């Protein structure tokens, strides 16, 4: 039942983003396994450029692995996070599929309009967007406020420049220690050479 419902949802999304058909069609018959820690599933590209959940004995042509922390960064639209997605197998196929998913949009207003009509759907959409923006802005404000408090008032988080300064000091210390080590080795060698040259004199005295 999961496969039937998921396939229906995927195909609904693809139908709303018809530009994706052209991108996916050249890979018809190929499949990609998605490892999202909590959700591991394989998707197969159909001949009409749509997507479906793969069957029970499918062997994937590519694998995409996204850790939960990376997923959160991707949802927050962190561009640098995209570079950390782990891709194995047919990289061209996996990259195109990832491109489709990152550009895909759910036209919820269109779906809603079929249930409640165009105008209420638009108003509800507007309300939803406003709520999302408010939550997003509140989240950013709260994060900034807390980071400022923990940096300035009750230092629990190091500032970036302090971390950089600490790193530079560690580098200098490491270089100093290496120099000192070399100097000590040199001294030890000199000392050993001197000891060797003194010993025959001691024998003569005896």
């Amino acid at each position, binding site marked *: 039942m999961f*496969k*039937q419902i998921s396939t229906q949802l995927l*195909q609904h999304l693809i139908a709303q983003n018809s530009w994706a058909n052209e991108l996916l069609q050249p890979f018809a018959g190929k499949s990609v396994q998605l490892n999202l820690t909590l959700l591991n599933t394989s998707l*197969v590209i*159909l*001949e009409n450029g749509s997507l479906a959940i793969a*069957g*029970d004995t499918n062997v994937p042509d590519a694998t995409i692995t996204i850790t939960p922390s990376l997923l959160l960064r991707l949802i927050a639209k962190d561009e640098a996070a995209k570079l950390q997605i782990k891709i194995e197998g047919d990289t061209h196929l996996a990259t195109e599929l990832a491109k489709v998913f990152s550009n895909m949009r759910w036209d919820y207003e269109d779906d809603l309009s079929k249930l409640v009509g165009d105008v209420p759907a638009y108003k509800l959409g507007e309300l939803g967007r406003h709520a999302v923006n408010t939550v997003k802005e509140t989240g950013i404000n709260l994060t900034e406020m807390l980071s400022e408090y923990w940096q300035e008032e009750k230092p629990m988080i190091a500032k970036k420049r302090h971390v950089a300064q600490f790193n530079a000091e560690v580098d200098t210390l490491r270089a100093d220690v290496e120099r000192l080590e070399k100097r000590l080795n040199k001294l030890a060698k000199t000392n050993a050479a001197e000891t060797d040259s003194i010993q025959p004199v001691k024998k003569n005295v005896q």
Partner: protein
Amino acid sequence: MTTEQNTHFGYKTVAEAEKAKKVAEVFHSVASKYDLMNDVMSAGLHRSWKRFAVSISGVSAGDKVLDIAGGSGDLSKLFAKEVGNNGQVILTDINASMLGVGRDRMLDAGLNVPALQCDAEKLPFPDQYFDCVIVAFGLRNMTHKDRALAEMQRVLKVGGRLLVLEFSKVWQPLAKAYDAYSFKLLPLMGKLLAKDAESYQYLAESIRMHPDQETLKQMMIDAGLSKVDYYNLAAGVVALHKGYKT
């Protein structure tokens, strides 16, 4: 075990030449109540299985689709919507009574779907003609499944897909409950609704004699199909196999 001359008809062993005749009798008998019985027996699930098969087929506008053992035409109707006016769906069945029901339904729905009575083991179509061939709940009634699969492969274009929707081996923990349903309830429902307990007894037996998921997958590979994969539906009560002609 079957020999060259003998084959299964449910749990009975009959002469190969007899099987087609006996299957024909079963379907002549149930044709008028076929849809009603399907709905009652599967609690309407057969419709969602068929819709799923269409969604997995990858069929798009302009494609040519062959519906084998299409009977009352459920799948032909769904495919006709997908292929549009530039595509082509052909409904076939070996049984004239079943095909008659399907043909009438296509006409009533205003769909241009030709209905053709033919044997799946000797398809009257040229090589490499169809983009998709589907057989739903029909393969298990065929006398020589291997020949039928080879024929389906023959009429597919390169890159074309064969879909087989058929009863299969249920998930083991549910096997006892499923047996009780199949051998006790099913013939009873057949008796009450279609006034034909025997045909539904045959249905239950033929399901048990049909190859399981992995065996059918291998049979499709042996018929020349590649990348064969299957979906277990309703815990394996039904399986949808898909293979490609390459």
